Each structure stands twice: as C-alpha cells, then as structure tokens.
C-alpha cells in the first residue's frame, strides 16, 4: 500500500490554479522526489499532505488514513521540514526541540534522550544551547530536520531542504536521509534542483502547472525519452518562423524524433537522435537548404530533458519565468493563516 496517495487534487488561490488534477502515489520505504520549477504546485501539494491546507476537491490518503477527515492521525506519523516553518529566535535549539517534544506528547525523559541522539547525529553539539537567532542557514535547517524527526515519524516530508545551504550541512543532511531510508522511513522531498533529486530519489514525479507530467525512476524517465539529445541553433537568436522551417526539414530526416522548439532559448531546436550517425546528415541537409549552423551539440538524456520534452522549456527557464511573475502578496497570503 502506498504511504501517500493523492487523487485528482484541485486547489486555486483566487484565479490562480495551483493544482489541476494532481495524482501521486508514494510507495513505502522509498525516497520520492517531487521535481518542478517554483510555482509548479509542489509546495501546495506538500501543504495539503501535511494537513496545513485543504484542497478544493480530490482525495488525500496518508498512511492509509484519509487526511481530510482524520488530520490528527496523519500529523502524528508525519514529520515536516519546510522553509516557511519558522524557528523562535529567542529560544535555544534545545528549548525548541523540547517544545516540539511536548507538542507531540512525548515523555520528558524520552524527549531529552532523542534530543541527545539527534544532536550527535546532526553535529549540533557546539551550538544547540545557543539562541536560534544566531544560527546560519545550515544550522537552522539541521535543527528543522531534528525537530521533524523527534517523534520518529514514518513519513518525513521535506520542502526544498537544501536550498542555499553550505556544503557541510548539505552532506550531513543527505547522509541522514540515506540512513533513514535504510531504516524504513518513507521520505518525500521536493526540489527544483535536478542534481539533488537525481542523487537522492529512488522514484520521482515531475510536476508542472499543478499536474504530474512524468513519473518513475530516473532511469525509466530517461529511457522513455530514448536516444541522445541534440541541441541545434541555426543562429544565436532565431525567430519562430525560421525554427518552424528547420523543424519541418528535420522531421523528414530518418533517425530524428521529437523535435521541440525551445522558445526561451532563442528558438533553438531540441531533438532526439537514434545514433551519432544522424549528426552529419543533419549538417548535410541544413547546408543543402542553405541554413547556417550556429551550434550543434549532443548529450545523453538527463532529467532536464524529460522536463523539456513534456513542457517545451528547460527547468531553469521555467524557473526564471515564474520568478518574474511572482506575486509577493499572494505568496504571503498562501503561507499565512
């Protein structure tokens, strides 16, 4: 039985549709990655799983329990680590963990025992009794992780856990996550870093515009794409018309599939080729039709290509696009109760 099941989740903030029929199944004991640009709906989905938010429609089952009708049962078995969860600057890290223990109704002796364990495992000995206000980003995130793990949840949910972290903190956190997985904890981790998902996740879903657009292991996703990736630019900056013409031309060449025009990258063309032998043929055909070639590069399929294939833009470009449209007021409204 999957630990998380989401069925047809819909959620809107006013006229902004954050989730549009999101379906997800996270199997037990696996580190599952949610990959997508900012604004794709990752955080909204995670807030719903953690019972912080109700969907407009759809079903949420966590650990076999309906999270919408029995949120408290879900909260007991779930640890949540997120950027928007604040720490109290006036308290020390230890005091915050003690508070957390009381909120999860642990016995005092149990709390102090587990705090000692986590302090050691996450290397917090030297600063755990300092006030949180003096912590660096990496220390804060380690403390967040400790507070999410204090009640030994069966499911750990991390929203962008290592954004902007120092290397030491990142490696400490990654190491701990791997240990947790081997001990049978299920972990859901969202990120817009391909590298992070690729390094940690056993399975993943790629999310775009509030929907899952691809799902599976990294290998499966890449295999589905098949072949090598080629990026072709006839000029540094082409226009739509020219790229369309080149696309028509390319579609006639044998061994080329899935020609996508990447609008954000100056209408460059992304294509999949069966073998390396196709490259000289491309050059030949372009010369014949008197198209110039600015650049022609070839690479193995990556997760970014999976995203590109499904959406027609790279993750980075989607990221930039969203960043420019970000509505700060809406953001704070979403995070605030």
């Amino acid at each position, binding site marked *: 039985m999957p630990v998380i099941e989401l069925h047809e989740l819909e959620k809107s903030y006013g006229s902004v549709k954050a989730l549009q029929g999101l379906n997800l199944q996270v199997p037990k004991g696996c580190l599952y990655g949610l990959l997508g640009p900012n604004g794709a709906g990752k955080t909204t989905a995670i807030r719903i799983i*953690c019972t912080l938010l109700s969907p407009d429609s759809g079903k949420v089952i966590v650990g076999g329990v309906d999270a919408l009708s029995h949120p408290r049962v879900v909260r*007991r078995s779930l640890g*949540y680590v997120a950027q928007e*969860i604040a720490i109290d600057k006036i308290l020390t890290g230890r*005091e915050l963990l*003690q508070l957390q223990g009381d*909120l*999860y*109704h642990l016995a005092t002796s149990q709390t102090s025992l587990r705090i000692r364990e986590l302090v050691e495992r996450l290397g917090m000995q030297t600063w755990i009794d300092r006030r949180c206000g003096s912590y660096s980003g990496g220390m804060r995130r380690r403390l967040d992780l400790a507070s999410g793990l204090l009640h030994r949840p069966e499911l750990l949910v991390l929203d962008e856990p290592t954004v902007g972290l120092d290397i030491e903190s990142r490696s400490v956190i990654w190491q701990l996550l791997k240990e947790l997985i081997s001990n049978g904890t299920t972990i859901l981790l969202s990120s817009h870093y391909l590298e992070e998902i690729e390094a940690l996740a056993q399975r993943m879903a790629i999310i775009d515009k509030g929907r899952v657009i691809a799902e599976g292991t990294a290998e499966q996703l890449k295999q589905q794409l098949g072949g090598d990736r080629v990026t072709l630019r006839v000029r540094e900056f082409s226009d739509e018309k020219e790229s369309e013409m080149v696309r028509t031309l390319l579609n006639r060449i044998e061994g080329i599939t899935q020609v996508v025009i990447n609008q954000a990258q100056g209408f460059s063309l992304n294509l999949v080729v069966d073998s390396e032998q196709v490259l000289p043929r491309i050059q030949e055909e372009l010369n014949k039709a008197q198209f110039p070639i600015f650049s022609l590069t070839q690479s193995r399929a990556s997760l970014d290509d999976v995203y590109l294939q499904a959406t027609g833009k790279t993750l980075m470009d989607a990221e930039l696009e969203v960043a420019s449209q970000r509505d700060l007021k809406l953001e704070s409204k979403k995070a*605030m109760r």
Partner: protein
Amino acid sequence: MENTVDVYAQGIDEQGFILEVLQETLALTRRLYLQLLRRPSTLVAGIIQPLIWLVLFGALFSKAPEGLLPGGMTYGRFLGAGVIVFTAFSGALNAGLPVMFDREFGFLNRLLVAPLRSRSSIVFASVIYITSISLLQSLVIMGTASLLGYGWPGVSGLLVVLLILLILVFAVTALSLGLAFALPGHIELIAVIFVANLPLLFASTALAPISFMPTWLGWLAAINPLTFAIEPIRAAYGGPLDLGITVLHAPYGDVNGYGCLSVLMGLTIGLFFLIRPLMNRKLA
C-alpha cells in the same frame, strides 16, 4: 478547536486527553515566559507607563480644592483605580501581538502540523500568559500607589479588585486574539491598539468623574466597559466592601457593584462567543 468535534465523537473521557492538553498548553506558555524573560522590555514598559500616569497625572491635580471629588477623596486616590484598570487593559490589549507574529513568521504552521490534542491550547497559553503578566503589572501599580499614599483596598477588597481585573483581562484578551486572527498583519494590529488605547481611557471615569463631563462624554463614559471595572475598584479602595451599594451614577440610572460585575461578565462571555467562529476557521 476543530478537534472539539472529534473529541466528543470519541467520548470526552478518552484516555489522557486532559494530560495531553495540559502538556501542550504548558509547553506553549513556557515559551511565552522564556521570551519575556529574555526580552523583558514590554513588561518593564508596561509598568513604567502607568507609573508615569500615576505620578505625573496625580501631581497635576494635587492642589485641586478639597471636596471637589465624590466622597471628598484626594485626586491621587481617585486616579489610582483608573490607572490600575488601565494597566490591565493595555497589557491585555497586546495579547494578540505574539500570536500575530507567529502567524506572520510561520511559527503557527509548526504548531498546526503537530498533532495537538486541542488547538485551543494555543489560545489557552496566550490567555494564561497575558492574564498573569497583566495581574502582576497591576499589583506593582497597586503597591506603588499605596506607597504614594493613595490607599490599599484591604483583603476582601483586594479579592474583588483581582476578580474584576481578571474578568476585564479575559474580555480584552479575547478581543485582541480575535483581532490577531482577523487582521492581515502586525502593522494593522498595532494601529488598532494605538487608536483604541487612549480614547477608551479618556472616555471613562479613570481621570475624572462623570459629573465633570459634558452630557455626551458622560454617556460615552457610562457605557465604556472600563468604567464598569474602575468604579467598583474605586469603591473597594474607598471603604468597607459592599457590592450592593451604588458605585456608578450614570445618566441612565444608578449601577451597583453587582451590576458592574454582571456587565463585565456579559461582555467577556459575549466576546468569547464572538471570536469562537473566527478561531475555529483560522485554526481548523
């Protein structure tokens, strides 16, 4: 709060319910005290401000002709009751601020993902904290007033004073917590507190009796909840305790001590019922 329904469905005597609510409430209250201990400026300011009122304002009218005030009391003695009530009032009015900051900074989310047995714990913790702090501030003011020679209410009188302050603090805390969940941010909350504070003081009998006021202001003062807290306390300071005697000569008639207490009680209960649906929605 949403859990109240759950709890009733499962039977209120579900094992450990009270213990768990107690555990989470105490932990949340402890956090508020730790904050105060490490940042005591609000507590100190909350004591200094009424002291300044007491000393400076008391001195302002110290040469007022005798017999001007009801019962022939000195102005300092008259003012004492007003400043005590004002201290408790303005302390409780700030009750919503920590909650508002928790909303804004996202600390509330930490509490909301936790399996709290009852989310009322969040409200309980604020009420316990603010009540104890407001009463402490008021006691300091009462002590200082007695040192200044403005009198002391005696044992039974003191109990009445504390009871009245308790009811008032509950009412104002409810109001402030309601605002903390209804308003969009701390700037708005501070603005409301700022605007509410002084006019409520001036339009009450804290600084002058109704007989000094023009009719319209007298009416305002006579319906101001602060007046219903001030007058019985003033009476408790004035002599042997008797809640049956008239303490307020309002334009609409005389009100005795019991009447004042009932009005305050009614106000508190009314406010708690008023903010309940809002809390239920925000903490659901």
